[in-house]
């Protein structure tokens, strides 16, 4: 039996890594005495499979985890999918909240391979709203957007453009930018994850590249010395949705949650976070 969980990661805990989160889950599962299946072999591990890694520092409303349960023990003890999210959430550290648990089919393709794109909302500093809007339209209009990306420890040139599926500055009336200071500009994007996942920091590099700046800068997108003042820098990032696209339908990774392509669940989700 395989269960897929959807959970959020919000607040201070965003500074922990994907690996840290995996360990938090393992401890919570042991505390809950879940009838989890273990890998075979000399050093058995719980059978957990996490989806696409979330960068350390980013928040998320849409993280997924697949868990295999031991059918023998499930038959004995039973598992209640309705109460499970709440029961496990209290055992997880503050900031990790499980929203749903559903049973899914066993699949040869991992969750990570199935997801085709992610929606993100970002708070950006360093540029005005108009400047960011201009950079975004330049990027969308460009045929190619070459940026330096790290691959296997080496920096190489890659075209960002095909990976940017949607990009827009958030409307001023949107409740999206939860920043009372008004210091930041909101940005919404859908970034493809195939063949390689694009990170929001890499999107920043793309924006810099199309606006004539150099894209050679530190990984976190912080401006290097002497850079122009129009450098967008990420202040806060949230993954709002992960998508599996199949035959023109975008589907949320929990079964039975099919929505037509283009529907803006991302905006909706961000409102909930506010």
């Amino acid at each position, binding site marked *: 039996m395989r269960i897929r969980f959807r959970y959020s990661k919000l607040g*201070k*805990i965003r*500074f*922990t*890594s994907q*690996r*840290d989160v995996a*360990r*938090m889950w*393992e*401890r*919570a*599962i*042991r*505390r809950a005495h879940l009838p989890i299946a*273990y890998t075979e072999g*000399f*050093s*058995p591990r719980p059978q957990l499979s996490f989806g696409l890694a979330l960068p*350390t*520092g980013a928040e998320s409303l849409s993280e997924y985890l697949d868990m295999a349960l031991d059918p023998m023990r499930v038959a004995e003890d039973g598992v209640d999918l309705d109460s499970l999210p709440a029961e496990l959430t209290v*055992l997880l*550290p*503050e*900031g990790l909240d499980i929203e749903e648990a559903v049973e899914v089919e066993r699949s040869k393709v991992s969750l990570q391979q199935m997801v085709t794109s992610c929606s993100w909302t970002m708070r950006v500093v360093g540029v005005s709203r108009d400047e960011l809007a201009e950079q975004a339209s330049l990027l969308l209009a460009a045929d190619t957007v070459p940026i330096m990306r790290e691959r296997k420890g080496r920096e190489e040139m890659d075209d960002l453009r095909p990976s940017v599926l949607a990009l827009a500055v958030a409307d001023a009336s949107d409740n999206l930018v939860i920043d009372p200071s008004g210091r930041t500009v909101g940005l919404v994007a859908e970034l493809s994850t195939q063949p390689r996942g694009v990170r929001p920091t890499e999107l920043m590099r793309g924006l810099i590249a199309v606006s004539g700046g150099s894209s050679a800068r530190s990984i*976190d997108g*912080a401006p290097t010395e002497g850079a122009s003042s129009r450098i967008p820098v*990420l202040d806060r990032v949230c993954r709002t949705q992960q998508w599996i696209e199949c035959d023109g339908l975008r589907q949320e990774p929990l079964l039975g949650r099919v929505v037509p392509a283009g529907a803006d669940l991302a905006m909706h989700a961000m409102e909930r976070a506010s």
Partner: protein
Amino acid sequence: MESLWPQIEPLLAQVTKPARYIGGELGAQMVEHRCDAVSWLLIYPDTYEVGLPNQGLQILYEILNERPDAVAERSYAPWVDMEAAMRAAGVPLFSVENHYDAGAFDVIAFNLSAELVYTNVLNLIDLAGVPVRAVDRTIDHPVVMAGGHCVFNPEPLADFIDCFVLGDGEEVVSEINEVLVAFRTAAGRAAGASASTSREDMLRALSRVPGVYVPSCYDVAYDDTTGRLAGITSKFADTPDRIEKRTITDLGEWPYPRQQLVPLIEVVHDRLNVELFRGCTRGCRFCQAGMITRPVRERPADQVRTMVSAGLERTGYDEVALTSLSSADYSGIEETVTGIIDDPSCSGQVSVSLPSLRVDAFTVGTAAQIQRVRRTGLTFAPEGGTWRMRQVINKLIREEDLYAAVDAAFSQGWKRVKLYFLIGLPTETDEDTLGIVALAKQCVAIGKRYHSSVAVTASVGGFVPKVQTPFQWFGQNTIEELTRKVYLLRDAARPVRGLTIRWHDPKATAAEGIVSRGDRRMGAVIEQVWRNGGMFQEWSEYFDLALWTDALEANGMTLEDAVYRHRTEDEVLPWDHISAGLHRDFLWQDWRDALAEHGLADCRWTPCYDCGACTGYGVEHVVASAVPPAGGSQGTGQDLSTGGQVPVRFLSTAPSSAAPVDGPADTAVALAGEGRS
């Protein structure tokens, strides 16, 4: 107090491992500060990952927070990138729970487990916005305290720390709190008309608490002609001339930590830790921990079981370490570990580790039984390369015990074995040093009988003589001498396939020696190293010997005098006024016995030597079993006259296909007969 989180948060995007600074551990106490409670900030002066697991700090954290008149939070040394960001943004040191300003606490208390963190201590005091030197502080500044193993020579930090706390902290921390309630809380001040607002009066009051040493209440005299320390004496009739450490008599009364912290990020020793016993009377002469924590006080077995099962249930950990200085010596260790393994609630998924294995086959048998996950190798610590050397240091392990242990490890599936040794020990000759390679070579040969490829690592540390031990008079080996010995070992090991020698940087050993036995004048050296940027000196990437030697020279001192010189019997030692219970004449006699290559059996199972640790304080060993553990010779009353002379026998039969081990008997003879100077 106001949380600094809004200022801290933007810094975290720029630093490595930002989760070091967010708190949020399971077991963290989000205490509310109150005007009738003394606020404590407990600090481990190294990184979060190194400091968080410290059990001593966690115990005091809980005891203080259980009191109605105290609150406690924690802090650790920010890594260099975070410190730079904090200083640039004007953010002071903060607690990880409420993110409160460290300088606003009533007490900031450091755990001192290693000498090379002293510069971090100064840096953290400064980062808290508190004057680094104690004399410059006013009543409005926190009381700066320190406890832990290093305070048995407090003098090098005496200029910076207001008061040191010696020995077990469980009881004394409450007594200190009671004194501070009167001076530090508004309620306390209002209640007691006598409560003065002078910092001196407060420190005087603290100095009357047994086990507390307030350096400013003591006069230091130096000899005019030699410049050597002449004596440290109390200024006042009501402060003791000699400060005795605190000892809890019954560990069973202190089942702490009850709520061990479970961090969000991976730390060292990331597992449940349950202390089996405190103290160790094996009597290894180089070992300060063993000397200063006497006598042995075992935790009752049923309490250990409860702490393990409740701890696993609460934390979700799948590993428990049964800690103490020599865990296999715990009475009934076997029943204890099998009890954990067989506990149905653990459903076979919990591994138990004994961090300090004794060197014998019995212990390995236990380890094999309990280590469900054999991801690491096994580690043994023979410490000395020859039986003669091991008699000098009183680490009474016979060669056959070591080989039997290693044989048991390899035969039960381990392929990697690590051996710990010390070099630069008293009376050490090159034969003793090379004995390390000879022993390790034999271990490789044993392994080859079971596996086609094995890895034996001999990890070699330079010996630093520690205060309150029989070796406190010994002049440390020079950097050159230690380096020569390292090369000797490296060259001898080179032809041996499967053997790796690792060594500790002899320069770092020298720096440790500088601070270990210094007097109060060493404070200026530590301060200068810190002012010149010498932080995280425990970390090889930041360690810089030149900082230390320059600072020594600037203060008119030399490595020769501070580190390499043998101390004499009549010399006043800077820690003579500090007592871990051990009589000075006991230590001197033990030093003479060491030079005479005379071993001393464990006083748990043999008559008392009257070292002072029990006799002086009216306490005694708390041990459930009156008989030494089975197997092994490590001071357990067996015939120890033949440790190196016995021909090496392998206790288990080799697999038939294995080639004979070449020359074990030859090696044994070579090891036995030589090396007496």
